[in-house]
């Protein structure tokens, strides 16, 4: 190994990476698999977009190499560099019919071999509002920057050609030491993220960098302790699993990961995940919603499906499904396909550190979802990414010690506490003595009219000093308990006990249950057409039932909500919601009719309550 902190030499790095390299299970119908980034770069052109100017091609396709990329030519303030996949020729494009024909005739490139099937649509799993928002989101794509439909074909042709030359599966590896950990960083490069085009997801973008980290500790020999799989923009404790967690699937020393179709998000379990795209609500709406929620759940003590928790901010979410079924190709040691030797990033190659641009089309999407990602070292805004400069903190391990160091850390901590306790004890002794002396002084000066000011000052000092002594005693007591607890903890660790493997997880991503994914064709059909049917029904009501507009609207909305609740097996929730709505209307009716009576009654109730409390006090 090289330094105490920093990168590890190439030979050791490769040995470690290969020893713990992951097994990756894909979803049937995946188009793009992890590949070496070099042939991709060779096939792309490099473009630069300066503010208020049209993008210009600075390196045409066929002339770009990783070394040339590292130079980032024609860089200026505000410039965004990006790669661009060559558009396919008309002969290379494949529509639905052409794709079917190609599968039979093996046209060039005949890729992919399988097509993704969504099964039960995501819309059947979410409610009306989300479906409506989804429709608006899709419409917004027309106005926002988006990856053109032809680009996914370009990606398919490009990747298909690579796969026809020889099916190779490569990861990019980098090993680094930080805070006592050895971090194995597996970077997976995909030519295209086709989540929206082929998997009904939220976005498409050219190129995709995903990552999977393994954290090792070293005490004589290296020992795997944690893994962290990246999914979308998630960071922190929820990302990682302990090596001995029964939920973490492993084959020998190789952790198993399930990669979601199109998005390439990496998951711990096979299944279908509901991924939510969150948009913050306007501040005023958020505040009103928070007040109403608090009144309903806390003041009225009403039932909630999960424990009521004050949210720091309210947001609106649109759900998408991430399909991590693991029923497709499996890549890794002893699997359908083996990994090629990794492309090492120890020492850091110039294309990693030198190129700060995007690895695919820059669409200028304000949400950035359609913009290609930057490389392993950078974020899209050209700053160094946290997973690069602080992989331990990125996975929330900055507060966790390695097993090898745990006893040493506890011993150090106890010594530190003991030292502090000695200091506190000495300070406490000193202050206690002073407090007693002051007490004696105050006792002597009490009821002496000529010393009343001095007595007041003494009393004030006694109070201050007394508080300080109390704080010190508390600190001493806390430290004593802490030292004992650390001692017990060290004992448990020595006996081989470990804290619960999942104690650090707050919101673990879980696949939706089989029960939820099971739905009839009618439910799927209803989910697909419901938004359009509701809109048509509303127009019909406005056109034909203007005389009874309110009743007709209430009836129509109640009917649709009932059908929806039936399909989604949420009749209980529907009835509760309907009752709440009716109760609100009823309360308004009462308020309108008995406004002054209600005010008088409320004042009387408060008066009676106060009277009752006072009388109870008298009776004691």
């Amino acid at each position, binding site marked *: 190994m090289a330094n105490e902190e920093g990168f590890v030499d190439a030979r050791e790095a490769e040995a470690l990476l290969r020893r713990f390299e992951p097994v990756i299970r894909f979803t049937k119908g995946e188009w793009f698999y992890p590949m070496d980034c070099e042939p991709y770069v060779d096939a792309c052109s490099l473009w630069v977009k300066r503010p208020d100017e049209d993008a210009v091609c600075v390196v045409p396709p066929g002339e770009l190499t990783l070394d040339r990329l590292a130079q980032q030519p024609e860089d200026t303030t505000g410039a965004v560099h990006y790669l661009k996949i060559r558009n396919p020729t008309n002969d290379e494009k494949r529509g639905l019919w052409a794709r079917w024909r190609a599968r039979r005739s093996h046209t060039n490139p005949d890729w992919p071999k399988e097509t993704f099937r969504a099964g039960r649509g995501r819309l059947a799993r979410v409610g009306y509002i989300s479906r409506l928002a989804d429709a608006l989101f899709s419409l917004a794509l027309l106005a926002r920057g988006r990856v053109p439909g032809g680009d996914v074909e370009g990606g398919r042709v490009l990747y298909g050609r690579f796969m026809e030359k020889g099916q190779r599966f490569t990861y990019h590896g980098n090993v680094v030491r930080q805070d006592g950990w050895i971090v194995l960083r597996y970077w997976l490069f995909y030519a295209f993220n086709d989540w929206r085009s082929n998997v009904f997801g939220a976005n498409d973008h050219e190129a995709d960098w995903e990552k999977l980290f393994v954290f090792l500790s070293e005490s004589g020999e290296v020992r795997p302790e944690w893994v962290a799989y990246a999914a979308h923009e998630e960071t922190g404790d929820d990302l990682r699993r302990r090596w001995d967690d029964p939920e973490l699937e492993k084959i020998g020393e190789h952790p198993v990961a399930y990669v979601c179709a199109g998005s390439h998000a990496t998951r711990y379990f096979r299944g279908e995940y509901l991924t939510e795209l969150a948009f913050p609500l306007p501040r005023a709406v958020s505040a009103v919603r928070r007040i109403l929620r608090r009144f309903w759940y806390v003041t009225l003590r009403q039932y*909630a499906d999960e424990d009521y928790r004050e949210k720091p901010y309210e947001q609106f979410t649109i759900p998408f499904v991430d399909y991590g079924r693991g029923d497709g190709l499996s890549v890794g040691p002893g699997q359908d396909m083996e990994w090629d030797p990794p492309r090492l990033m120890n020492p850091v190659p110039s294309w990693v550190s030198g190129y700060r641009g995007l690895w695919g089309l820059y669409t200028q999407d304000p949400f950035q979802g359609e913009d290609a990602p930057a490389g392993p070292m950078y974020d899209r805004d050209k700053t160094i990414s946290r997973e690069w400069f602080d992989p331990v903190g990125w996975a929330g391990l900055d507060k966790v010690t390695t097993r090898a160091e745990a006893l040493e850390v506890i011993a150090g901590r106890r010594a530190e506490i003991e030292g502090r306790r000695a200091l506190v004890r000495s300070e406490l002794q000193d202050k206690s003595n002073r407090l007693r002396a002051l007490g004696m002084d105050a006792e002597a000066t009490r009821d002496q009219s000529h010393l009343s000011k001095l007595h007041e000052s003494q009393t004030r000092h006694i109070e201050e000093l007394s508080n300080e002594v109390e704080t010190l005693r508390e600190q001493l007591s806390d430290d004593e308990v802490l030292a004992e607890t650390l001692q017990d903890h060290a004992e448990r660790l020595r006996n081989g006990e470990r804290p619960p493997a999942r104690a650090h997880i707050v919101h673990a991503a879980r696949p939706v249950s089989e029960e939820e994914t099971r739905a009839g064709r009618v439910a799927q059909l209803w989910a697909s057409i419901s938004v359009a049917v509701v809109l048509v029904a509303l127009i019909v009501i406005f056109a034909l039932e203007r005389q009874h507009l309110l009743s007709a609207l209430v009836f129509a909305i109640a009917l649709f909500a009932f059908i929806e609740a039936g399909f989604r097996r949420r009749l209980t929730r529907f009835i509760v919601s309907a009752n709440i709505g009716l109760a609100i209307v*009823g309360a308004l009716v009462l308020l309108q009719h008995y406004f002054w009576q209600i005010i008088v009654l409320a004042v009387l109730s408060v008066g009676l309550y106060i009277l009752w409390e006072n009388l109870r006090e008298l009776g004691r």
Partner: protein
Amino acid sequence: MVGIGAWLFSRIDWDRVKVLANEPGQIQVQTIDGALLKQLEQAILYFIYFLPPAILLLLAGLGFVLLRRRGWMLASVAQALIMLACLFFYGDSRPWFAYPLIACSIFMILLLNSRSVRAAVHRRRTALADARPEVAHGE
């Protein structure tokens, strides 16, 4: 609810209704006392609107005795029907009895949806769900 229903029916002059019903030939509606017609209409509507929730409430009562989840569901549906009926009455003739029934329904809705009642009624189901193996949840 039953008390109000009984009162509504008791204030109708049934002898007069009988006489009118037994009169041969066509009855000129204009000749019938308007107040009587109104009382009769209100009583019949009350019967139609409140009979189903009354039956549901009886069944819900039985359900609650057996601590079944269906009892809670029936009671909730009954409350929804009562509220709807009251709101229809309110929109139509605004009778005095709509208001206490609305107030009572609001109280019952809040009570039925309160944490303690829901926890008691749904306990059995929650316990079963908790007991399911982790794998069944896809974990």
